[in-house]
């Protein structure tokens, strides 16, 4: 049975923890709104560029001399996994969800005899994967809290990926991030980045839009120049979009996690207070009995 003093200190410490989690929840809620807005505003651009690429791919299919960024290098020996996570923890299963998806994929590829390379964006994914895949780790790119800065980081990373691809350092690149659905639901997803293949849902919408127009496209200035500009741009945009989606997902996950923590702390305080009051009453009763029996003895 803990003493009254022990109980009092425990209640005080749980209360201060609760204050912290409550504050973190409110900060996350405030940040979430901004992050969600920018993630949602970035979506149309990323989707449109995907549609255009899809149309171009349909037009270029099977043609000799098509850019390798679209058709791939023709091999699938070396896989690069781009794992985008957050810079901070304490956000529920957000980071571990992405890391787990990436880890499973890496193990599957390795079991198939492929070579795996991992590039981390955000330190948390790096922390989760570095013990298991220390040899495969290519680099870690840190993110910043500032959005304009992150855009620059995404651009640089995109350029770097294209350079690595041209230097044949990898054949296929897949990006892992968490897609923001709503405040309570974020799903880790794996998106193929190079070559730019479509997911099935995209395929439908792109297919519907592109019917009829795909065969006869004019290019200005000319086809190869447009593609040289467009394809690396697409990669940069997709990376930037992943960072934004991640940002919103992170805040959403943190808000939910901190909400739970605050509620748990509240329950714990209630339980401890009950225990404290019982102990106090038991002590009073005990003292009364002692006084009464003392008086009786006289």
């Amino acid at each position: 049975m803990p003493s009254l003093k022990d109980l009092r200190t425990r209640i005080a410490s749980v209360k201060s923890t609760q204050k912290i989690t409550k504050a973190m929840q409110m900060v996350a809620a405030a940040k979430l709104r901004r992050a969600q807005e920018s993630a949602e505003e970035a979506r149309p651009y990323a989707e449109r560029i995907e549609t255009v690429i899809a149309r171009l791919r349909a037009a270029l299919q099977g043609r000799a001399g098509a850019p390798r960024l679209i058709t791939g290098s023709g091999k699938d020996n070396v896989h690069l996994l781009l794992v985008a996570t957050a810079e901070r923890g304490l956000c529920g299963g957000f980071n571990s969800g992405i890391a787990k998806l990436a880890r499973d994929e890496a193990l599957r590829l390795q079991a198939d005899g492929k070579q795996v390379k991992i590039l981390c964006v955000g330190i948390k994914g790096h922390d989760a994967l570095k013990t298991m895949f220390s040899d495969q780790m290519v680099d870690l790119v840190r993110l910043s809290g500032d959005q304009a800065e992150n855009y620059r980081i995404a651009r640089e990373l995109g350029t770097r990926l294209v350079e690595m691809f041209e230097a044949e350092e990898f054949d296929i690149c897949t990006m892992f991030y968490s897609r923001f659905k709503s405040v309570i639901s974020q799903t880790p997803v794996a998106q193929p980045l190079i070559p730019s293949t479509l997911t099935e849902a995209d395929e439908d919408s792109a297919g519907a839009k592109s019917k009829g127009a795909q065969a006869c496209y004019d290019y200005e200035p000319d086809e190869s120049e447009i593609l040289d500009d467009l394809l690396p741009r697409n990669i940069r945009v997709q990376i930037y979009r992943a960072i934004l989606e991640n940002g919103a997902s992170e805040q959403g996950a943190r808000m939910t996690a901190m909400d739970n923590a605050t509620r748990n702390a509240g329950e714990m305080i209630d339980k401890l207070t009950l225990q404290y009051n019982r102990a106090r009453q038991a002590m009073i009763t005990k003292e009364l009995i002692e006084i009464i029996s003392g008086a009786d003895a006289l």
Partner: protein
Amino acid sequence: MADTFHFELVSPVKLLFSAEAAMVVVPGVEGDFAVMPGHAPVISTVRPGMLDISLPGGEKQRVFVRGGFADVAPDALTVLAEFALPESELDKTVLAQQIKNAQEDVDDAASDEARNRAQEHLDHLIKIESAL
């Protein structure tokens, strides 16, 4: 034939415009071109300049764009701009920043071809600034 087409202007940070338009003049890299309903499908890169949008009611809007490309289909036009800002919000400080960026592009250009292109962009920006 319909006398309007669907026009969308998107930049990486936001969807700026999504509505029917009667005509849009796009500053293409090889010269301005006007897009009207039924235009042949074209993909063109965009140089820094003004998008002239004529709405179905005869109203006009001008938007500054830099970098990106235009995707023209018979019934739709999508402009994907690296940077876009309505003319009313455009001022000297924004433009000065853009010019600085363009200057950096010129300095960073890896090949002669890229440098020429970047220099062209820079010249266009300076022209716009002097017109403002």
